[in-house]
């Protein structure tokens, strides 16, 4: 996984300027529908499967990055 590619994907979905330190609460467009779309795009693009039980824990870009990294093994 290239962090820069993931960050671009996240930014494209949210249509927002984001970096590794961005918190969900700081991005107005990061609502529930976008949240699910974000997981879908990341899973499809980077070939990972994030368990649904862990998705509620994603409240920042950094946690999403860590989950992708963990799922990539």
């Amino acid at each position, binding site marked *: 996984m290239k962090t820069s590619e993931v960050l671009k994907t996240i930014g494209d979905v949210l249509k927002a300027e984001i970096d590794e330190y961005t918190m969900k609460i700081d991005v107005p467009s990061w*609502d529930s529908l976008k949240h699910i779309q974000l997981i*879908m795009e990341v899973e499809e693009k980077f070939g990972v499967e994030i368990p*649904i*039980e862990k998705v509620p824990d994603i409240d920042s870009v950094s946690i999403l990055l860590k989950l992708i990294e963990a799922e990539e093994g």
Partner: protein
Amino acid sequence: MGAAFLEGVTIDGISACVPKTEIDNLTFGRELYGDDIEGLVRTTGVSKRRVSKEGEITALDLSVYAARKLFEYGNYSRGDFSGVIFVTQTPDNLMPNNATYCQELLGLSEEIAAFDINIACSGYPFGLFAAGSLAKSTGKPVLLLDGETNSHYVSPKDKVTALLFGDAGTASVVSPNASGGIWTFDFETIGSKRSALIIPDGGYRNRINKYSSQYKQCEDGGFRRPIDMYMNGMDVYNFVAKNVPKRIKALIERANESSASIDWLVLHQANEYMLKQVARSVKIPWERVPISIGKYGNSSSPTVPITLCSELKDELENANIKSIIMAGFGAGLSIGAVHMKLGSVKCAGVFDYE
């Protein structure tokens, strides 16, 4: 937790009805969502949905239509029923209930029980529990109607909900049947989260008042009326993510089944990608999770019976389904799930309302 069992009943027949008016979300949602609409339709799966005009077609109309079609198709005798149960949160009137009106409209015997159940998207398994219990107790079939017109209380300017909801009515005949096997249920209710999915005005806590029909910008950014649905999408998603897979896994275990032995998992059609995530978590292949959300949208509790009619008609009529799970989840917040086997079911299909 939340376990219940019934034995000696079956779903004998089923049908569904939707309004003729179809909304194409790619067109409808362009103004509200802009370029985001393609991605949102792909994620939610709601490309089309059926809606009725408020004040003209109600959940009762759609469900009665479905019942009439089912009576013809299954050659049911109207005098045989011992009850009619209507699952809805969009009744014609607050008083009396829908079910009593259906007794008259459908020409059912006056010596029956007729009552409504209000429990939102998780409703069909709750309705099956009530109908199955009554059918078992009386030794006679019970008519279970499940209909909603959610589009009537969704603001077209609220980004969280505008895209999702359609209208539908369904009818099921639940009959005593010695070879019906065991119905295993799982229920969960988290009342502390009830405000995550709520219509603030129109009940007896907040009566209809001069402000109830006025659109306003709300704190969450949604533009809606107090008589419209408010949904905290993240709270509801988190509830589904944390609780629904857990409850389905518990149900599979309680029914002495395994993920591999489940023929069909029929889930409330809330959001297609979320359903994929749930299926993955409970280890049931996506091919065994029928989906109708692309045609009819989220019609609340009727999504489970409408998916049966739309996607599993041949299987219901021609195959003995050894193992099927139906699960609903939503306002309350609540979950209802049931596991059963099914013999041949008279499935009349999905009709357009005329």
